[in-house]
């Protein structure tokens, strides 16, 4: 797999650390109840198909959201996590 870092261009999968799906962009608020936190920390859609996930480009430090197909490993898009979080 190759992933296009918005700053560095197409880079090898080895330069990245995968954090899992992009749940972490939707952190519950301070007053959220335990079930919301359970949902956030543990539960996942875990689709067989297109998935948005958080990758870290280790050399440049960019956090990116990668849209990737979990059945074919094809990468369909990369955006900066801070833009995706807006």
């Amino acid at each position, binding site marked *: 797999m190759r992933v296009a870092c918005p700053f560095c261009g197409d880079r*090898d*999968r080895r330069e990245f650390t995968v954090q899992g799906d992009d749940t972490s962009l939707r952190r519950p608020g301070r007053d959220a109840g335990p079930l919301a936190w359970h949902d956030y920390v543990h539960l*996942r859609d875990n689709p067989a198909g297109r998935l948005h996930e958080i990758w870290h480009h280790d050399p440049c430090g960019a956090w990116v959201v990668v849209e990737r197909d979990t*059945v074919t*490993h094809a990468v369909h898009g990369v955006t900066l996590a801070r833009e995706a979080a807006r």
Partner: protein
Amino acid sequence: MRYSGLRLIREGLRGNAGWTRAWRDPVPRPDYDAIVIGGGGHGLSTAYYLARNHGITNVAVLEKGYLGGGNVGRNTTIVRANYFLPGNSEFYSHSLKLWEGLEAELNYNVMHSQRGLINLFHSDGQRDAFVRRGNAMAAQGDDAILLDREGVREHLPYLDFDNARFPIHGGLLHPRGGTARHDAVAWGYARGADRRGVDLIQNCEVTGIDVEGSRVVGVQTTRGPIRAPKVGIVVAGRSSQVAAMAGMRLPIESHILQAFVTEGLKPVIHHVISFGMGHFYISQSDKGGLVFGGDLDFYASYAARGNLPMVEHVMEAGMTLMPMIGRARVLRSWGGIMDMSPDGSPIIDRTHIDGLFLNCGWNYGGFKAVPASGWCMAHLMATGQPHAVAARFRLDRFATGRGIMDEEGTGAQHSLH
């Protein structure tokens, strides 16, 4: 047909013309007493023990592909009971005892070989952890022997003991650990279940789970609707998709774990060797191939194949540990789809829907669990109560925080296992 040495000789002399099919190919009936979704190792053993232990024989196993075509045919066949935490320890101990009687039980040669498993350690701290683990195994009633460096050398003289990064200080020997023929386990349970009246229905994909009120009443399949008051989901590798049919979101991520086999060689590796620090483990199959694997690729995947960086990592770890295998040629590599749970331990439990039961989250350890998983899942489906040795495999432990079983001690979060 009962298999025996005598039968083998007789059929051999008669041109092998007398063998019959190992199981029927039934047409699904409109209703059953229980449905098991998933015709892999765990699903087939569940059906077998429903019939054997609980007398529930009006059972259908629904398999979308062919029997044993998933992870039970895609693992590295290791059988062991070297767990540390209460909850896991008694479960895998029970499973190993079932393995030890499995061939006589099933009248099927699963080629269970207790050749001994050695986990290597490389530092004083790691040794202390292994002493503790060995004591936990002994306290459970299983076997563990601590080997020093020379003790390991007696068993495994061919390792590189003086590697600069990971010099071998010793190992924990689990003599009853070993391997089995993975496909044969699925086939043995399939044949055993079929002989007791269970319908094994292949090419029958479940497309929906029917719920009336708060009770499950059956499933929709590609071969029509089938009704049953009890349904067990036993589809590790596809758990999230099938559970979603019942409106559930699971604490599961699916990851890829790769494995490799070389060309057949003369007997050279007589144990199962686990090199945890290098994420590498290896054994030799009865056919002679070196069977080995490493760690997850660490991204979600249903592809059943991995990427080259982990291939490279595994090969490097193998060369680090035993340079002698460097000339062996790799024949095949493949990937299994791992149901990864946040704490690395499985789930065998009821769900919020009456009559619907869930068996999933086997992480990298599903194969050795096949007998006990079926035993306990059958008990749960038949009685409605968890079996004593699987009582801690609760689905709600993540929501409540009670009973988390984080065997690795890395933290009960998805990205940490």
